[in-house]
């Protein structure tokens, strides 16, 4: 269903899968080129420019997988407007319904959008160990379950407050830093570096991209799986509680 519904809007599909992450990548690449031009030595944090270019390129595309603002807005809208009724009377859960939509959409867009960093890496010979790509992708998709669970938790707030889209915007800004999309997390000073890398959010961009581009080893990936699992338990417990409480106050015509 997600595939049918999304390819229906061809232009939106192409922009989301290709144009948007490409633009993000170009901005980040320019940023790193400018930083290295102004830097005294040839390295920052022990890594040369090609490492950062490769990180910026892959980071932009991994970050696209690791976000669900579009579906989060829809989930909030469903509850705010009362159109969630159509789902509540059917034998499946709101969580599962949007989870399957999100996963279906990410699969079809990832397949297309990954062609760009793959092609660029091969063409420009930037550091990336392609044999590490499957495990890195698996981690980001596992992290996507957590992203969806957080979206579910945020959307449950719509049962109690109208207009909560600002939650999503604020949360996404925080994730921009916490996932490592903005800068590699290993550039942060200690003790923040250790804390942030051990948070589950690092598994969205930093851990898989650092592993893929040779900044980190496989042990960090396993650690990522573990911290995402802990995050999943905590967020889903809170989500289930809020959903139950929300339904008790729900009036069936929107919040």
């Amino acid at each position: 269903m997600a595939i049918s519904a999304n390819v229906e809007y061809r232009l939106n599909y192409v922009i989301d899968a290709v144009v948007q992450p490409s633009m993000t990548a170009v901005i980040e690449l320019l940023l790193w080129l400018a930083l290295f031009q102004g830097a005294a030595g040839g390295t920052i944090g022990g890594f040369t420019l090609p490492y950062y270019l490769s990180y910026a390129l892959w980071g932009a595309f991994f970050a696209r997988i690791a976000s669900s603002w579009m579906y989060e807005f829809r989930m909030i809208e469903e509850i705010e407007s009362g159109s969630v009724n159509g789902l509540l009377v059917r034998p499946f859960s709101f969580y599962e319904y949007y989870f399957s939509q999100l996963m279906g959409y990410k699969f079809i867009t990832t397949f297309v959008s990954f062609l760009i960093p793959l092609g660029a890496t091969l063409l420009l010979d930037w550091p990336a160990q392609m044999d590490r790509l499957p495990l890195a992708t698996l981690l980001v998709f596992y992290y996507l379950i957590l992203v969806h669970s957080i979206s579910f938790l945020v959307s449950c707030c719509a049962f109690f407050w109208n207009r909560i889209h600002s939650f999503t915007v604020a949360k996404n800004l925080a994730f921009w830093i916490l996932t490592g999309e903005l800068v590699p997390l290993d550039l942060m000073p200690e003790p923040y570096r250790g804390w942030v890398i051990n948070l589950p959010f690092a598994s969205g961009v930093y851990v898989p991209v650092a592993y893929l581009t040779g900044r980190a080893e496989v042990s960090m990936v396993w650690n990522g799986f573990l911290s995402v699992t802990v995050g999943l338990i905590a967020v889903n417990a809170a989500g289930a509680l809020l959903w139950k409480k929300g339904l008790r106050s729900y009036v069936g015509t929107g919040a």
Partner: protein
Amino acid sequence: MSSDAIETRGLSRVYKSYRKPEGVWNSLKGLWDRQTVEKTALQPTTLRIAPGQIVGLVGANGAGKTTLLKLLSGLITPSHGDALVLGHHPWKRESAFLKRVSILLGQKNQLWWDLAPLDSFALLARIYDLDLAATRRRVQELTKRLQCDHVVETQLRRLSLGERMKMEIIGALLHSPDVLFLDEPTIGLDIVAQESIRDFLAGYVRSRGPTVILTSHYMDDIAQLAHSLLLISKGAIVYEGTVQDFTRKTESVQTLSVRFAEDLAADVRLDGDLHLAKGGKEFHLKIPADRLGPVIAELSRHGSIQDLKTEETDFEDVIKSFLATESRLL
């Protein structure tokens, strides 16, 4: 409990909202100080509906009929009391319950906006664990009966309101529910579409025999489809009986609009208390249906009639008049 399809005991629902006095200062004050207001949408309600019954649920806007429907279909949770629908507490939304009921909300889309109905039906077949080939045959049968087989491959968002409603009906009936909640299934449709949907639903309930609760503002929907009637006012059921009894109690009234070719030359008194003032040309009269013929005959004796039309009195007015007769205020 019993073998009834639907049974409620003291079922009620209270809604909470915030009072927002006028003005910018009160808007700012509302940031830290909000006054909660409680409204009883449904007063403690006890009722029993036998399997296969078609019940018309009527009442004015805000009377509580949709709240009752939402409680029984599991969309909302009661504040007090209990209900069993097919042996399940609806608000627990157990899969076994949801697979046996269906709700059609006339003012909300439940199929997928971006998908063609055929895709939506295929998805519903998977959701309800239906056999795909049998579902395809059933869709063919239902679309043929509703005369809408030509639009099943068009995205829902591109269909007209009437076509969309037909698709929603098919979606709601695909899994052959034992209990069907129909909330204003013909609202906003033109007369042709209303009749088509009404005929279809009448045929469907005759052949399949589900328990149906139907709300509608159109008396024709209730008269044609329902065996019995629940009249709800201010959140309480104030009448429970057959449609025939209700119709007998609420004398059918028509609005007669008449325009004469020329102004009336003198005052005219008709049928007791109807008064047509001298000098007037156009009149709107409320007349019992069985008095229409004599009144029209009498009118034609007082001038040349240029235009004449009759309309059934608004259903809300019928209910109001019934409640007034029964000494209950709406």
